[in-house]
């Protein structure tokens, strides 16, 4: 074993890239869940974003346009979920699972002609002064713009939920839709917007996979990343800051264990790969065992359907 062959600068840099797709998807899903809606279709929205982003980028030669289209595609797909669950009051779990299946099928259909093609990827930013700093320059300040955008979204969501009136309304809708309705807030409209935001974020995360991390389209390429994003939301107990930690932890452990293996460590690597899931289970156990705490974590009306006449 030769741990000295692991370069910490490159390790952190590759963790940031590796964690970006799940970070984007998780922060979007957290907003959705904060509004009281459980959308299990993250995987489907991600892969739809991945394929649409790739198709647009390859046809226009502009990756940023690809990202924009991916966000729109994710939001449009999530809108079908929104209409079904909010207007027609369908079961959120079943509809969410259906959305995943639709997304996987739709993406493989749309992506067929694009298999094996190469696309232009996002350039690494060259930030004046910052990028030239020793160590941190390479580690933190020479990524592509989406890495920074994902971090900005996390900060924006945190500020929005904590400091704005609209954020307070969104949380109120998630905690008690009946009360929010009685106060005159448009529960369904708020939830629809949250669902579309979640869809757009998942679409961006998917496009990051197909345009930057693995710059190509391969059927089924998200390979469960959407489910990991859902786990991160629980792991983070619905807090933006912890979403960031969770995503970097989940992404980081995958990269770390591969680096350890490449450095010659063979023992315990499987346990390391398992650990994020074990931690998530522990967090779930902790949340459900502590009744008084649980009220501060999961939105009280999470997954419940709302109808004004009830």
């Amino acid at each position: 074993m030769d741990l000295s062959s692991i370069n910490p600068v490159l390790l952190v840099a590759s963790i940031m890239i590796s964690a970006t797709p799940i970070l984007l998807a998780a922060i979007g899903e957290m907003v959705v869940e904060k509004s009281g809606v459980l959308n299990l279709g993250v995987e489907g929205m991600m892969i739809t974003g991945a394929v649409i982003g790739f198709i647009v980028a390859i046809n226009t030669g502009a990756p940023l346009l690809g990202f924009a289209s991916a966000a729109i595609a994710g939001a449009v797909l999530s809108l079908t979920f929104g209409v079904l669950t909010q207007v027609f009051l369908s079961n959120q779990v079943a509809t969410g699972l259906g959305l995943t299946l639709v997304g996987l099928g739709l993406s493989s259909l749309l992506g067929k002609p694009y298999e094996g093609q190469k696309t232009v990827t996002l350039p690494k930013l060259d930030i004046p002064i910052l990028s030239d700093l020793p160590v941190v320059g390479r580690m933190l300040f020479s990524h592509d713009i989406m890495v920074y955008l994902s971090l900005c979204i996390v900060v924006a969501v945190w500020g929005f939920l904590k400091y704005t009136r609209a954020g307070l309304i969104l949380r109120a809708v998630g905690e008690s839709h009946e009360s929010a309705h009685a106060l005159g807030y448009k529960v369904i409209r708020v939830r629809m917007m949250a669902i579309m935001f979640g869809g757009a974020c998942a679409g961006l995360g998917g496009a990051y996979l197909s345009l930057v991390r693995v710059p190509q389209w391969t059927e089924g390429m998200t390979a469960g990343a959407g489910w990991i994003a859902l786990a991160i939301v629980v792991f983070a107990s619905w807090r933006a800051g912890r979403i960031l930690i969770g995503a970097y932890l989940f992404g980081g452990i995958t990269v770390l264990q591969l680096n350890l293996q490449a450095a010659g460590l063979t023992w315990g690597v499987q346990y390391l790969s398992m650990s994020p899931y074990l931690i998530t289970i522990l967090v779930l156990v902790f949340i459900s065992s502590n009744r008084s705490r649980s009220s501060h974590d999961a939105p009280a009306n999470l997954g419940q359907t709302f109808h004004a006449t009830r």
Partner: protein
Amino acid sequence: MIRRTLLATAAAGLTLAFGAPAMAQDVTKACFVYVGPIGDGGWTYQHHQGALAVKEEYGDKVEIAWQESVPEGADAERVITQMALSGCNIIFTTSFGYMDPTNNVAAKFPDVKFEHATGYKREHPNVSSYNARFYEGRAVVGHIAGKMTKTNKIGYIGSFPIPEVVMGINSYYHHAKLANPDVELVVTWAYTWFDPAKEADAARAMLDQGVDVITAHTDSTAPLAEIAKEGGSAWGFGQASDMAAFTTNDDGTAGPRVASIIDEWSPYYVKRVGQLMDGSYEQIDSWAGMPEGEVVIGAMNDAIPADVKAEAQAMIDAITAGEYHPFTGPMNKQDGSAWLAEGETAGDGDLLSMGFYIEGIIGDIPN
């Protein structure tokens, strides 16, 4: 009126449904179970090319059907059963993890032929197994890797620690070492056959640690895409399929894929379905390689120096002619104990149960 039309349609439907088995007598139905999507550009794509070759060869006399992305395990058993019930005459199950499900279903359908790829269990007379000698291809790319590395560190992205993969690692390393005595091998296990993001991460981890030639034993083209980001200072190989998109870069320079190991299943599938149709079908355990055209090395690109190309071609010719066996002694096991004496070649049994690294490889095989 409408009701009558409806009834007539239903009746016609019933006739069709019950008439179908009679028609199935003339048409042989060959079915395929795939572990990944056809669009993986690698393993499953090649199996599907084989399936299409069967259709091409026999036209209307065969019907083909397939199911993609079938998880290994209980789901596989359900899918295979469904295929057997739907009138398949021969079912090819194309991943190692389908071994037990295939044998379990075979017990219930003695009239259906089952063909399992890369496994070793044939518990019933209607189960055959088939594999290709991928280690022959690994030997050739190992030689190229040994010659091309500048850092003297070469990498191998393993899927699962099964004999098939261990065999590939040993063959790759052995021939890299023969070509370049200073070479060092880095192995990482991805514990998946198909997860493009993780495969890319594995390649990235190796590149970050100074590995400059990587071969993968996973199914997607992601490692090559990751290597491409190095801009010509690192190289890789197409795996299972040619992955020709990475042969040249957009600017016309030599791309990251310097050669490839292609699994060519078509000859085997065409032969077996043909035998089933003419009645000469028997249970077999097939393990063919370069001589039979089942393992093919894809076009070598210009990143490889001409003399190395010639050496690699000579090795391909020797293996194809049956003159050279990639596991020819002297070879020792990792712990230094003797395995093959000078000039001795490894037996198939030894290879198929291979659970050890050869001398010089650092690290242990996980359990």
